[in-house]
């Protein structure tokens, strides 16, 4: 599902964020991406979501070479990736329902379908009944779950999460991780950038470790 082949990213400032990174994630796998701040976790996720383009080497998502996707096709490409952010990126002037419905509206789904799917997604993250509320009235954990519901409402085959538990206490963090496990179990590929090593090591998933832009460790307990 995700394949990096000798991929490097150098920013215009001359800073090498990623150097010669190669790895492959098969469909349905769940993995953690870890490393210190500035190790290149965010850059790696940005390359996958086409928020940045690689300077050298290739990135393939589902067999598609991202270098070959022109700018105007990027929106359509992104609809197949659910992205979850540390700061949620919710729209605070819209209700929970409208926030979660946004990807479906963008994709041009019919009204009837939208209602059904939004409720299903909110049910999945345990927020059914809060759809009329505004995000500002929710707790941090609830806001993050709204963000997750929005990321999965379109049923994308790939989920990316950038420090999804960054601001949450350990118990809430475990709940969120459990949600990701459930998505993984139904075939969604999940890549989670996190530096919460304590939590990561309690979970039986592959861990990719970056340091100064290089992939220094790739452990998979299932091997």
């Amino acid at each position, binding site marked *: 599902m995700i394949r990096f082949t000798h991929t490097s990213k150098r920013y215009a400032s001359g800073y090498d964020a990623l150097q010669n990174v190669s790895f492959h994630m098969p469909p349905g796998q769940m993995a953690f991406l870890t490393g210190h701040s500035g190790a290149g976790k965010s850059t790696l996720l940005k390359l996958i*979501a086409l*928020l940045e383009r690689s300077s050298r080497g290739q990135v393939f998502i*589902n*067999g*598609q070479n991202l270098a070959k996707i022109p700018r*105007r096709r990027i*929106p*359509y*490409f*992104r*609809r*197949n990736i659910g*992205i979850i952010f540390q700061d949620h*990126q*919710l*729209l605070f*002037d819209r209700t929970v329902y409208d926030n979660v419905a*946004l*990807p479906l*509206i*963008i*994709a*041009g*789904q*019919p*009204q009837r*379908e939208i209602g059904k799917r939004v409720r299903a997604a909110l049910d999945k993250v345990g927020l059914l009944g809060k759809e009329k509320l505004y995000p500002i009235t929710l707790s941090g954990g609830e806001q993050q779950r709204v963000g997750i519901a*929005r990321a999965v409402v*379109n*049923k*994308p*085959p790939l989920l990316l999460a950038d420090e999804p538990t960054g601001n949450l206490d350990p118990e809430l963090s475990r709940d969120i991780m459990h949600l990701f496990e459930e998505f993984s179990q139904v*075939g969604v590929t999940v890549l989670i950038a996190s530096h919460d090593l304590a939590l990561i090591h309690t979970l039986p998933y592959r861990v990719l470790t970056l340091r100064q832009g290089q992939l220094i460790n790739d452990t998979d307990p299932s091997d």
Partner: protein
Amino acid sequence: MATKSRVSSRDNNIRQGPVTALRIYLLRHLQVFFYSLGVLSRSPFATLMTAAVIGIALALPTGLHVVLKNAQQLSGGWDGGAQISLFLKRAVEDDEANRLAKQIQKLPEVAGVNYISRREALQEFQRLSGFGDALQALKDNPLPSVLVIRPTAAASTPAGTEALLQRLNDYPAVDLAQLDMQWVKRLYVIMELVRRGVVVLAILLALAVLLVVGNTIRLAIQNRRAEIVVMKLIGGTDGFIRRPFLYTGFWYGLFGGLIAWLLVSLSLSILGEPVERLAGLYQSRFALSGLDFAATGMLLAASIILGLAGSWLAVGRHLRDIEPT
């Protein structure tokens, strides 16, 4: 797009026929159409201010256009062919003048001759000028007798009338032969000048409207930067993100146009009564004609187009700058 369909083949996107897709598309447009109106109505004062600026800018050329149209209507009756007035010498009596009239009537270039004697001229002058009492004070009739000559259509060309004028001037009884078209021509040239001025003014003010809308939309884009970033992150196309801003421009244009229409109509209704009174003093039934249906349509269409164009320019320039990082 083989890859894309492979990606989405596992999800259960329901299949949409082209008709369903079109219906959804139109429905979304309608929603954004009213959503953008809702956003504007949440800050009515700011919206009204912007629309008022547009309205005033558009009211100016529109008002001048109406004034010009009225002036043209007023002068419209005057270009029905040239007339030549032959002012006869004061010594010429009625008999001689009548003989001259018959003589001139026979000229091939002349369609008709009308003799106005000195007495008739005085009566007409008294009736039309409003100086009746002042004229009573005069011992003598100061007016000459006049032969009003209508050239035939064939002789009504500028060169033809000029030649006829020369010829009539040569009669010994004639004091002065005058082509009455001169001042009408001048008036037309002046009106053409004013018309061009109005066009230039309209272009400049249209540019101003474009900039006002563009700037307003630019601010709206900046205010909703976070929202645009989120839209781009979850796969919103440029067209989708652009839509609410374009509709906002549409609404500004529409409201601006309505305000312009209101301002012009109001001004005309204030001017209407005194104009009629003035026209009455000149024995005229002239009344100000306002903005007709076609002109109103043109005004609104132009204003909406300017609103759309202004927002299009702003969106085109600033939307690309906002990229998620």
